[in-house]
């Protein structure tokens, strides 16, 4: 059964190739079947595999499928091999499943787009590379998937290539992430050179053997990998690309820029957690980055006018939570939050897609009162939103976030600051979430709805709704059933959660305060953005700054982009050529000069003869 693993990659690849080559000649129906179907099959196979895996766990909870040796040179023998363990299984399930739902949604959503086949080709390719990334048993193969998803994200952001805006956004995403990738690549070089392998398990094992905790090498390696993760997961300081990435079609944003790809960084760090535990400083840095990003992004989300940009910033901020968890050493908490986040954020994006499709407008301040006509979307937003904001007990987001919050105090690296920051973040989250919902769905209706959603969309929305509600019960804190199933499941790979700090802050207290900040956020949102209030965006400076995402773009533009462009433009004519052409000039000058001696006058020539003789005589006698 498990041997089918390779199909999970192969099928999407195949359909992607087919669509890329012959897509233009196929009917939309066929394209839909190929595009969504392939992922569906992949999802089914994954389910089967997952079932088998749970029912009869293989040796050491790990199944490895070797396909072939990629290359072998001087002891460097990365393989094309897939590594299935609880963590990758969890990722795999989420990717294929959410992936399938989003494909299903797109079948209808993209139906009238000219690039139908192209879209599904890209999406399938993305799923394939994402799965490769997840299942890779060595870092090089992971890097392949890593770059693959980057490519697909680039292609999909620029999917509507006619608009230069989108093209620029695509380029930005690719280049910014490439920064991280380069760091990642150097990290690989370092790891192989020092450990002699890129096989993740061996490498981690050897690292644990050879490197002492806090050793400079471990720190360097961890830092480099972190660089890669930061860029992919849009964390500070490389977060700037994600909001612009919303230029892509909404399903893309849902799948790539919310549910799966952007969390690759989290996955990478979780996979290589050994390194990070060997480098405490870096791990702490991860926590810091997570926290700061979480807060800054939340503030930015608060000021956005564009619905999708709100969601984008909230994604950044939620991934900030995951980084925080990673930094705390609460690995499984991070994975848990990744899962729930995948559900509700995908839901939110898809719902947003419905709204945008219906009213052809993304500016929250032009919307309003849509709840009557777009019931499904409204409820999807309410459910997804409360999951995001962490409505206690009945939403998935609550449990996962609660776990992180609790760990931010109780975890090995936890402290009050993280806890407080986490709480603030939670407050902001619920604030901007409900701001969005209130602005969009309450108050006077300004736009009339053009399109109603069809079956495919409804199905995918409903499924995701239910997932964002019940998805949390796989791992609940003691007071509420206390079934840490997921954590236990992951424990074979990731070290279990430990609680070192006891009191003054207790778990109950955390839960209660989390619930209060949720309510507080809701109430504040109602006060500020409620139906009764004026619907004009406040224009104070702070909000301007938030709207501009704290001006990172401006900074980078001045610091990096312009100088580089300047250099490129200046040197385009190849300065090295100048001296060489100069040489040519010199010879020509020589020619001109000598040419003057050829006067054509006999007497001058005779003189030349005489002078020449004199000269050589002179030389002869000087030389003696």
């Amino acid at each position: 059964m498990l041997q089918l693993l390779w199909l999970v990659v192969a099928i999407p690849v195949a359909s992607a190739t087919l669509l890329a080559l012959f897509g233009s000649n196929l009917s939309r129906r066929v394209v839909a079947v190929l595009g969504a179907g392939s992922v569906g099959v992949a999802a089914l196979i994954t389910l089967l595999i997952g079932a088998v895996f749970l029912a009869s766990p293989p040796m050491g909870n790990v199944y490895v499928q070797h396909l072939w040796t990629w290359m072998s040179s001087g002891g460097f023998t990365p393989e094309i091999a897939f590594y299935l363990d609880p963590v990758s299984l969890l990722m795999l399930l989420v990717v294929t499943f959410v992936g399938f739902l989003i494909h299903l949604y797109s079948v209808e959503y993209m139906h009238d787009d000219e690039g139908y086949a192209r879209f599904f080709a890209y999406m399938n390719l993305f799923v394939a590379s994402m799965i490769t990334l997840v299942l890779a048993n060595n870092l090089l193969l992971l890097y392949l998937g890593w770059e693959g998803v980057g490519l697909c994200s680039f292609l999909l952001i620029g999917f509507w290539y006619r608009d230069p805006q989108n093209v620029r956004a695509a380029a930005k995403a690719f280049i910014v992430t490439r920064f991280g990738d380069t760091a990642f690549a150097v990290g690989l070089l370092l790891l192989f050179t020092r450990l002699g392998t890129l096989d993740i398990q061996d490498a981690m094992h050897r690292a644990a053997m050879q490197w002492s905790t806090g050793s400079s090498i471990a720190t360097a390696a961890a830092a480099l990998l972190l660089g890669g993760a930061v860029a992919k997961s849009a964390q500070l300081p490389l977060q700037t690309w994600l909001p612009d990435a919303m230029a892509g079609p909404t399903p893309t944003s849902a799948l790539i820029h919310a549910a799966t790809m952007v969390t690759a960084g989290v996955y990478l760090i979780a996979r290589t957690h050994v390194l990070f535990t060997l480098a405490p400083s870096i791990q702490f840095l991860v926590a810091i980055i997570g926290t700061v990003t979480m807060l800054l992004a939340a503030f930015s989300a608060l000021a956005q006018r564009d619905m999708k940009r709100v969601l984008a910033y909230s994604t950044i901020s939620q991934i900030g939570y995951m980084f925080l968890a990673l930094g705390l050493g609460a690995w499984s908490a991070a994975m848990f939050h990744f899962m729930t986040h995948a559900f509700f954020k995908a839901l939110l994006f898809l719902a947003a897609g419905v709204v945008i499709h219906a009213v052809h407008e993304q500016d929250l301040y032009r919307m309003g009162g849509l709840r009557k006509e777009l019931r499904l979307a409204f409820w999807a937003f309410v459910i997804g939103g409360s999951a995001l904001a962490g409505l206690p007990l009945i939403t998935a987001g609550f449990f996962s976030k609660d776990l992180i919050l609790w760990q931010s105090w109780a975890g090995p690296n936890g402290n009050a600051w993280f806890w407080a920051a986490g709480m603030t973040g939670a407050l902001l989250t619920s604030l901007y979430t409900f701001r969005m919902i209130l602005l969009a769905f309450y108050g006077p209706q300004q736009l009339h709805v053009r399109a109603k959603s069809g079956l495919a969309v409804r199905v995918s929305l409903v499924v995701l709704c239910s997932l964002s509600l019940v998805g949390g019960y796989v791992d609940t804190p003691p007071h509420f059933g206390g079934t840490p199933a997921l954590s236990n499941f992951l424990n074979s790979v990731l070290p279990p959660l430990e609680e070192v700090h006891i009191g003054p802050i207790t778990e109950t207290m955390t839960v209660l305060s989390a619930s209060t900040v949720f309510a507080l956020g809701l109430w504040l949102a109602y006060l500020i953005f409620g139906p009764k209030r004026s619907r004009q965006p406040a224009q104070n400076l702070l909000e301007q700054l938030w709207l501009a995402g704290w001006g990172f773009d401006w900074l980078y533009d001045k610091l990096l982009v312009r100088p580089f462009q300047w250099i490129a433009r200046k040197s385009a004519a190849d300065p090295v050529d100048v001296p060489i052409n100069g040489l040519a000039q010199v010879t020509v000058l020589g020619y001109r000069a000598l040419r003057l001696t050829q006067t054509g006058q006999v007497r001058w020539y005779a003189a030349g003869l005489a002078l020449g003789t004199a000269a050589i005589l002179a030389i002869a006698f000087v030389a003696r």
Partner: protein
Amino acid sequence: MLGLAGLLTRRNLIFTLMSIEIMLNASGLAFVGAGARWAQPDGQVMFLFILAMAAAEVSVGLAFVLLFHKRQLALDVDAASEMRG
């Protein structure tokens, strides 16, 4: 040497030829002198050769002078500088 000087200074073709003549004779003289030093006849022999040759040269030269004169009614050497560069 005188001949050389003449060659360089005078523009008239005839004079040019004459100065060449002078140069040749000078070197001939040198041979004679050298021959005398070693009391060998070779010097004089050489001198005779030179005389003969000089004669031949000058004859050809004069032929040129005629032709050239026919063409551009002048005996100016510098006029003969169509080709240059």
